[in-house]
């Protein structure tokens, strides 16, 4: 693997212009001051209760995601390119899902193989021929971006179900403003705090009917969910009710919530609950988190669910590999953001190549997430590779492979001082009936371990504040 591109010092040690002031500043601040501020940030996070849960970990019910105080900086130009590409990508995603559940032209044209739709566990036959309000499915998308050199940003993954992390984007900024006001006075950083207003405007624009002011709620699985903090954080910022399944009921095809003043009609549900759990009458009958009858109210067009039911059909890693063709098919445009080259192990020649090059590839499960169940070839030993080879041969359709990218690094405060660590970026794209909204930046995730490429919080990854410079 070649040396990674560092976003501050490039590959040749020349400080890139956007980072000059930060670099200067870092060199004047003693290490112990930085350490102290980092501890302060951690204390604030813990006191506010910004925690997440890791499933299957005992005694660790609530953990902090490590927060790195060195910001990651993007220029206005870089962001301009990114945001155009993101908007294009989400537009295509929406058109693809609409097509999959209606005319299926994309299948007829042979752009995407049929079984990727019909055999996809996230495909929802209930949505066949079902119109959704404003023909939008993915209202809130999180598109993961990685970078390998000054000019190349790749899309690594599309998250079209219930992407999380936006609360960290917002809280990271708040904490940075509190801890380093002097740094902000030296930079023109585009604000992100309008995300809550943007999200509310987006959700309101999706109401299934005009007229009265829509009642928007956020549906959470409850306090034991790993992202519960985010759910309550968003409800608070939006000023809407945070409901659990048991707070809602359906009568005559209308969704109501139980309030101290009696039942109140609900128009838009930003659900942070997977399809499977939404309605025990339609999906998993053992779900106690959902609302019986919700699907029938949805199908009757009396309530909007964001994201729509069945969007998972567009965000697994096999469909991902077709996204460039999908964009060309619906929009007649070249993709502005390239995909990472991807081998589909379902295809014999691809599989052959992958099996021959396992030590240099990253192999992922098509439906995996959170960094689980993947092989990072260069970091694995022989035994691990052989074990993975068996899994791969047993069920090739379940895997894709990608080259091990030299993800860009950013300066990060670690025990030994400031050192480069690999990062990615998750911007959040809001699609309303009126327009697409993207706040500048997103969540930067950072692999805190030296050399590690895994940024997932469940695997010890941390986060950074992401700055888009306004000038």
């Amino acid at each position, binding site marked *: 693997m070649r040396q990674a591109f560092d976003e501050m010092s490039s590959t040749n040690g020349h400080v890139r212009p956007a980072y000059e002031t930060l670099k200067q500043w870092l060199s004047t601040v003693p290490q112990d001051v930085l350490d102290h501020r980092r501890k302060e940030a951690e204390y604030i996070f*813990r*006191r*506010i*209760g910004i925690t997440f849960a890791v499933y299957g970990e005992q005694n660790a019910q609530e953990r902090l995601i490590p927060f790195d105080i060195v910001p990651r900086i993007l220029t206005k130009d870089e962001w301009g390119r990114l945001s155009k590409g993101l908007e294009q990508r989400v537009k295509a995603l929406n058109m693809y899902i609409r097509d999959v559940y209606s005319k299926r032209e994309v299948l007829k044209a042979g752009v995407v193989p049929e079984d990727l739709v019909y055999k996809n566990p996230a495909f929802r036959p209930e949505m066949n021929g079902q119109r959704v309000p404003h023909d939008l499915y993915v209202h809130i998308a999180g598109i993961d971006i990685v970078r390998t050199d000054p000019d190349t940003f790749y899309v690594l993954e599309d998250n079209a179900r219930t992407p999380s992390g936006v609360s960290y984007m917002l809280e990271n900024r708040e904490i940075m403003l509190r801890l380093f006001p002097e740094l902000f006075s030296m930079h023109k950083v585009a604000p992100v705090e309008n995300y809550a207003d943007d999200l509310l405007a987006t959700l309101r624009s999706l109401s299934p009917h005009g007229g009265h002011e829509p009642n928007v709620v956020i549906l959470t699985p*409850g*306090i034991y969910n790993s992202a*519960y903090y985010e759910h*309550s*954080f968003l*409800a*608070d910022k939006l000023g809407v*009710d*945070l*409901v*659990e399944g*048991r*707070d809602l009921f359906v009568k005559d095809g209308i969704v109501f*919530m*139980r*309030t*101290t*003043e009696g039942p109140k009609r609900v128009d838009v549900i930003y659900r942070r609950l997977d399809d499977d759990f939404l309605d025990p009458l339609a999906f998993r009958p053992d779900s106690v988190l959902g609302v019986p009858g919700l699907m029938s109210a949805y199908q009757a067009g009396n309530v909007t669910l964001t994201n729509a039911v069945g969007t998972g059909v567009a965000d697994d890693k096999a469909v991902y590999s077709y996204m460039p063709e999908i964009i060309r098919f619906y929009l007649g445009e070249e993709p502005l953001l390239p995909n990472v080259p991807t081998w589909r192990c379902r295809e014999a020649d691809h599989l052959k190549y992958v099996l021959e090059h396992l030590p240099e590839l990253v192999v992922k499960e098509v439906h995996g997430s959170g960094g689980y169940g993947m092989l990072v070839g260069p970091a694995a030993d022989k035994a691990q590779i052989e074990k993975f080879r068996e899994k791969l041969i047993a069920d090739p359709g379940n895997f894709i492979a990608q080259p091990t990218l030299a993800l860009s690094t950013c300066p990060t405060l670690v025990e030994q001082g400031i050192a480069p660590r690999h990062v990615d970026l998750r911007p959040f794209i809001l699609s309303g009936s009126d327009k697409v909204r993207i706040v500048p930046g997103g969540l930067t995730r950072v692999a805190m371990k030296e050399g590690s490429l895994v940024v997932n919080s469940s695997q010890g990854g941390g986060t950074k504040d992401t700055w888009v410079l306004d000038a």
Partner: protein
Amino acid sequence: MLSRTADNLYWLSRYVERADCLARILDVSQRLAYTPVTYGGSTNEWGSAVLTAGVSDLFTERYGPLEEAKEEQVVSFLAFEAENPSSIRNCFEVARTNARSVRTALTSEMWEVINTAWIELRNFPNRALTRDELSRFLAFVKETSLRFDGATFRTMLRNDAYWFSRCGAQLERSDNTARILDVKYHVLLPEKEHVGGPLDYFQWASILRSVSALTAFHWVYRDSVKPWLVADLLILNRQMPRSLAACYDNLARNLDDIASAYGRQGPSQRLARSMLARLTNRNIEDIFQTGLHEFISGFISDNNKLGAEIKEQYLT
């Protein structure tokens, strides 16, 4: 607002209030247990602490008869044990769980009090505490409830969320005061022992102390401690924030605030008003004549009934 949110706020406040009351009971029991018997100290103070806390069945199941209750057992049971759903530790656990579920309805100041207390609770060792550690612990509990009340009072919008939260605190508080009276009523009866003797003085004083009213007593009555005045202060005197009358003053008002915001009166408003009337048009002699014990046990059961009405009307 969501019924579940109202329910969580109501119980959050109840549990904080309950923890505070338990801390006071432990404080007073400790003090009485160290007082020589000739000065009104008694050997089964620890048993009556369990009674007052209303968890005697659970306790006897675990440790045997109340009369033989030992200090370490009672302290551990009332303060820390997970098996006792009303232990102080559990109160804080439940309070925080409730607070997490309704974070959006709390101000950040209220949340931080609860969350910080929950984090600090972990700093107290999970073994029998030394006396020093225990008194530090009890001070921490009382401080937490003061900070929570202060945060509520100073930062919450005066709307239904605030009123439900106050209703929970007041209902719990009146229940606690009534249970202290229920367990100790016999020392307040005039026919027992010679009135005003040294033996009783310490018992009466300890009752007052358990609702932090010893100093207040002297300011209100400008008299030495007398049993009927103790009863008057705790039951009928509205100046005294933990008296039954003061609690119902607040309860009736908060429930009326809710009713007028929602434009509808219901059974809980009617019951609260009738209970307030019962505490208003009385003097303490009347109550002694009809029977102090009967009065108190009647109150406790009506107070529970009000809790059930509030639940039925708003919280489900």
